[in-house]
């Protein structure tokens, strides 16, 4: 081995290990959130008439979540070992993984609307039946769209400065996904649209071009709100929850009662009472309120703190990664997760109108957890392989 080769070899090895601390931090944060989620779901699922645990633990939300946490951890390990280069678009459209994932997610999203395949829970068609499991395609679509957009925007030949061949096709893809998702799940659609828009800007699209797709996007957003009566109610009841405390203002009031009841230091783990049928969706969308009730607002701020560190670590990774595809992947995937967390907590604290959106890694729910694990795995992969890929090619 000559000197030049030795230097290159050393650089390659350094690439592996130099930034491994970020990945470890990221995984540590995720593990902390998952652990907190498990404990809180276990607490929140408490019911007066639930059968003893040993009888059917794995049918309870906490039992299921334990399995999903296992799968999610597996996803993190697998995707952090797979070189993210695998997701990079190939020479042709048909040869790129991102495209196929996107196509699959569109099919699944449409499938959720087909009776017999799709499933309705609480009046919303967001799920696909999969034997005894249910699957939420929008969780997959989020990740697929980010991978697809990052791939497209990182291609050197992509005409990012042009409107017709550059922005328009991507806007249409985003619009399509958001449209299908938003019909039943406006919160997730809003998260996807917001992060996609930011991703497009970060990918080099002219900022003022975005105004053009933004106008129809906003119009569609307004249409979707008005098309479902309950959404209008949620907005009016957000402005004045006391107007209908037993109806549309119920979620908001009960969530506030949980947070206020917990005080600064909380009622103690398992001691909360809002979970006994008062606060709906206590293991999923409103788990943050249960955390605040039992661990106090201090506990809630700790959760916020974890997500803030999560964002900072995302930024550190984003900064050190040198290739465009990797950068955009980190941006999109971390952005989606952090944005979702922000909106969820905003809903729980009645800072924005009520939306059904989960707190990543904490809320009960398999699809979200598994694909969030996949996203973290990919981010770790980028963190690890980006330098290697650059050096290897040279």
């Amino acid at each position, binding site marked *: 081995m000559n000197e030049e080769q030795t230097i290159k070899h050393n650089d390659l090895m350094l690439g592996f290990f130099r930034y491994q601390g970020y990945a470890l931090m990221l995984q540590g944060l995720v593990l902390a959130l998952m652990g907190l989620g498990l404990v809180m779901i276990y607490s929140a699922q408490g019911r*007066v008439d639930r059968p003893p645990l040993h009888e059917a633990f794995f049918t309870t939300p906490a039992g299921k979540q334990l399995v999903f946490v296992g799968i999610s951890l597996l996803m993190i390990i697998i995707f952090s070992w797979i070189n993210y280069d695998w997701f990079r678009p190939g020479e042709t459209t048909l040869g790129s993984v991102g495209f196929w994932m996107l196509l699959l997610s569109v099919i699944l999203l449409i499938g959720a609307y087909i009776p017999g395949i799709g499933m309705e829970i609480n009046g919303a068609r967001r799920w696909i039946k999969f034997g005894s499991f249910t699957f939420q395609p929008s969780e997959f679509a989020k990740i697929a769209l980010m991978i697809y957009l990052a791939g497209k925007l990182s291609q050197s030949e992509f005409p990012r400065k042009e409107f017709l061949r550059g922005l328009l096709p991507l806007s249409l893809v985003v619009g399509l996904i958001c449209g299908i998702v938003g019909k039943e799940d406006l919160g997730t659609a809003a998260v996807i649209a917001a992060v996609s828009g*930011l991703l497009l800007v970060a990918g080099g699209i002219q900022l003022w071009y975005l105004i053009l797709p933004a106008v129809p996007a906003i119009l569609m957003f307004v249409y979707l709100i008005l098309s479902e009566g309950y959404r209008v109610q949620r907005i009016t009841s957000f402005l004045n929850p006391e107007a209908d405390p037993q109806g549309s203002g119920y979620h908001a009031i009960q969530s506030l009662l949980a947070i206020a009841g917990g005080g600064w230091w909380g009622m103690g783990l398992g001691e909360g*009472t809002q979970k*006994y049928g008062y606060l709906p969706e206590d293991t999923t969308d409103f788990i943050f309120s249960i955390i605040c009730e039992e661990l106090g607002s201090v506990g809630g701020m700790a959760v916020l703190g974890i*997500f803030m560190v999560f964002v*900072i670590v995302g930024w550190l990774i984003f900064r050190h990664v040198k290739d465009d595809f990797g950068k955009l992947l980190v941006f999109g995937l971390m952005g989606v997760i952090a944005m979702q967390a*922000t909106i969820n907590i905003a809903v729980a*604290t009645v800072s924005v109108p009520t939306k059904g959106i989960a707190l990543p890694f904490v809320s009960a729910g398999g699809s979200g957890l598994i694909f969030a694990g996949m996203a973290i795995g990919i981010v770790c992969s980028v963190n690890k392989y980006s330098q290697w890929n650059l050096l290897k090619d040279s």
Partner: protein
Amino acid sequence: MFAFLLLAMLALAGRLTYIQLKKGEQLGIRADSQQQGYQRQVAVRGTIYDRRGRILAGTHIVPSVYGDPVMIYDNMATAESVSAIISEPPRPIFEKLEQAAAKKSRFVFLARGVDVEAADSLMTIRRKRGNGLFDGIGIQYEPKRTYTTGTVAGHVLGAVNIDGEGIEGIELYYDKVLRGKDGREAFIRDAAGRKIWLIKDQCRPPVDGKHIILSIDRVIQQFTQRILGQTCEYYKAESGTAVVMDPKTGDILAMAVWPEVDPNAFGNTAAEIRRNRAITDPFEPGSIFKPFIAAHALQDGVTQLGESIYCHNGAYTVGRRTLHDAHGYGYLTFQEVVSKSSNIGMAILGQRMGNGKLYEAVRAFGFGQRSGVDLRGEAPGIVLPLKRWTDYSTMSIPMGQEIACTSLQLANAFAALANEGQLLKPRIFRGAIDENGLLIDERIEPELINQAVTPEIARTMVLDVLRLTVTSGTGKRADVPGYQVFGKTGTAQIAKSTGGGKGHYEENAYVGSFLGGAPASDPQIVVSVNIRRPNRRIGYYGGTVAAPAVKEIIRAYFEYMHIPPFEDPNEKEEVKNVGGFDTTAE
């Protein structure tokens, strides 16, 4: 974007702080009130036992269905579902829910005292269906008073209202002892109203009521009521009373009133029938009053055993008043005046005694004052003050007129004669049993009110005078061979409600009475039977109407007590011949 997200999260932390600072207090109170529930822990009312520990009134726990209108989405649908299970019409349930909802009440009884199985299936269905029609429906177990033997001792026991408060009889008199103290359970409940855990420092356990033992004997009470009922029905009477007492202790062994009342259906019974007439309704006693005056005539020395008294052949005129006897008699001995119930003979004794002594006699036997029995609503009877007594009174009082007393007063005064002249306080309460099963407040020693007459005179009255009434006087139908029954008949006219004196009586309206006891040598029971307004065509004399009833009661009593006859009933009874007169003549 990263910076934007960080800022948004910082803003949310601020929002949390804002919630705690601004709304914490107000919202916290609301969370408490929506989650805390209270439930009355009802104290179980004490049991009432008879003197031998048989249950007369008990309490058992029955389920009642209640509703919480706030938790019910559709009152009609819920009312229909509940009514289908407990098999009651849905309409009243629906109305109760609507009324409670209008009042913003969160608790209303929908059906009280439902079937236990129905309540169980209601709760099972509620559990299985989870959130549904049965949200806000619950079962609360309530004590229900049950009078195990129905009408037996109904008038004595009285009854309780729906909330378990005594409203009559023993239930009212000893309400405080029986009732106990309700407790309270405070708990955190889930949204469907189900209990999660207790708030220990706000809970108060209930204190159950104490049990009570009565002097009543259920068996004696039962046959007394049966015999009284048969008598009243046979003679088509308006009402009747019977009191059975132990003369040695003043214990009331049975107190019966006809028509009977069933405390289990107290609310549906007319007030007229609910009244315990044996203590609430005074009446003019008539001839059964004579022994008390006669005893004092002996004591005062105005006459003596065997003295011949001229009875004016059935018509005796004093001033403008003429007294009559049912049969005209010439000379009667003192004993015969009582045993043949001569009004004229008694009037003469009265004249010899004078109003002052008569008044003393009346008061000595406790007339004109409450006997002090532990039952609510006792009437003192009527004895006019001495200064309002006239010459009329001198002759009326000895034959039981111008005076009114209750069945219990008569029985108790008669018991004094049977108990060597000692007038005891009649009692119905023997003791209580506390929560540890210990007997407390036991009443053993009889309570002496007054020595009504000397023991010798009392014994003479029983053995020589009252026994004679049964063997050869007006009370022959009361005799039970071998048991030395003694007694006195009475047939009193019913005074018009406007007041006393002749001409103030209703036409053909009588109280047929008999005061009896046995055995004469050592009296163990006294019985008072009074039949009000028997049908005149069937019979109305005390010796006809009431004496057989007393006989049956005495016979049943000794049979029940397994006491063999004191004399051989087949042997011809030898009657004491006092003063050389043939008392068996006639």
